């Protein structure tokens, strides 16, 4: 609303009318002119507000805020959280199934190892002709038992290896779920970028960096995390510690 437009011949004439009416004591006439002027100003204000409202509405519609963003916030984000929790659950199950199979297999391997070492020892003595007839009979039955038990143990070992194999089936499922969540994150990112553009907000890099440094870094993800101030493996940890006198 520009005041320059307000001062024009028409309005100057109105003000003259107003002055004349007042000087003549014509109250009705004076009021009429004032009402005229007021309504004219108000209508300009309303026009401007109307224009701004329309612009805002258009911008919001173009941004797709009313539908998609609400949908993401109400539905997709909680859904993604559930999916990621499921990933944790599946990987946890897989790790435990694998560990169970391994823990069950270790003692079997140790038994096989110990019995074989013992038999080997006896066998060496036999080939060196150091065994008596009784000792040889004992070795012979021990050998028989050993060979018999091997097939039982290997069946269990094979079964456990199969369990380890089957426990890896999580990778396919979790991979698909994580891909889905990545897609959602990309969509949210695009929408947020649009929102920042719309609001004309400057990016707050400094604040972001400060927030980052306050939390623990966790595992370094190649291509994502800044490798600059991190070590790339155990060798570099050892180098760093030895440079500190360790």
């Amino acid at each position, binding site marked *: 609303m520009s005041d320059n437009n307000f001062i024009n011949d028409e309005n100057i004439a109105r003000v003259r009318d107003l002055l004349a009416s007042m000087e003549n004591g014509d109250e009705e006439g004076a009021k009429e002119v004032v009402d005229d002027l007021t309504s004219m100003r108000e209508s300009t204000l309303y026009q401007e507000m109307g224009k701004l409202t329309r612009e805002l509405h258009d911008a919001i519609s173009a941004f797709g805020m009313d539908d998609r963003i609400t949908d993401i916030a109400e539905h997709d984000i909680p859904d993604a959280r559930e999916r990621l929790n499921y990933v944790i659950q599946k990987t*946890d199950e897989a*790790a*435990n199934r694998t*560990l169970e199979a*391994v*823990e069950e297999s*270790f003692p079997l391997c140790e038994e096989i190892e110990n019995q074989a070492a013992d038999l080997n020892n006896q066998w060496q003595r036999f080939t060196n002709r150091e065994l008596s007839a009784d000792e040889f009979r004992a070795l012979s039955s021990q050998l028989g038992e050993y060979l018999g038990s091997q097939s039982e143990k290997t069946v269990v070992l094979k079964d456990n290896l199969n369990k380890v194999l089957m426990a890896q089936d999580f990778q396919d499922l979790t991979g698909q779920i994580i891909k889905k969540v990545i897609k959602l994150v990309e969509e949210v990112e695009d929408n947020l970028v649009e929102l920042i553009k719309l609001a004309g907000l400057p990016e707050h890099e400094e604040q972001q960096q400060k927030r980052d440094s306050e939390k*623990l*870094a*966790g*595992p*370094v993800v190649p291509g994502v995390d800044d490798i600059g*101030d*991190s*070590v*790339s*493996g*155990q060798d570099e*940890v050892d180098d*760093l*510690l030895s440079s*500190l006198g*360790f």
Partner: protein
Amino acid sequence: MKILVVDDFSTMRRIIKNLLRDLGFTNTEEADDGTTALPMLQSNHYDLLITDWNMPGMQGIDLLRKVREDQNETLAKIPVLMVTAEQKREQIVEAAQAGVNGYIVKPFTAQTLKEKLDKIFERIEG
């Protein structure tokens, strides 16, 4: 030789326990964070503490500091091996300054664990 293994993930504790057993250390106990571990350390004797860094409750670095400040001189001198995914240089330096005896970054191998344990015990005996 009694060892306390502290990690918030039970699978990681299991992996470490299995590796330790394979190396001949069968007497191990577990805790899931510093808050649980500290009273265990104060009321029982352990010969080695293996701890993660990032845990809910009390973190590994704070557990290390609390142990080093403890009134009990034996506990204050217990060897501490940190096994963690934290691999920022400043964090490794921080752990060293807090008095850590070994630092292993995840993922790690059985060989690395063996080397670090050998080194720690070598120093204690030497």
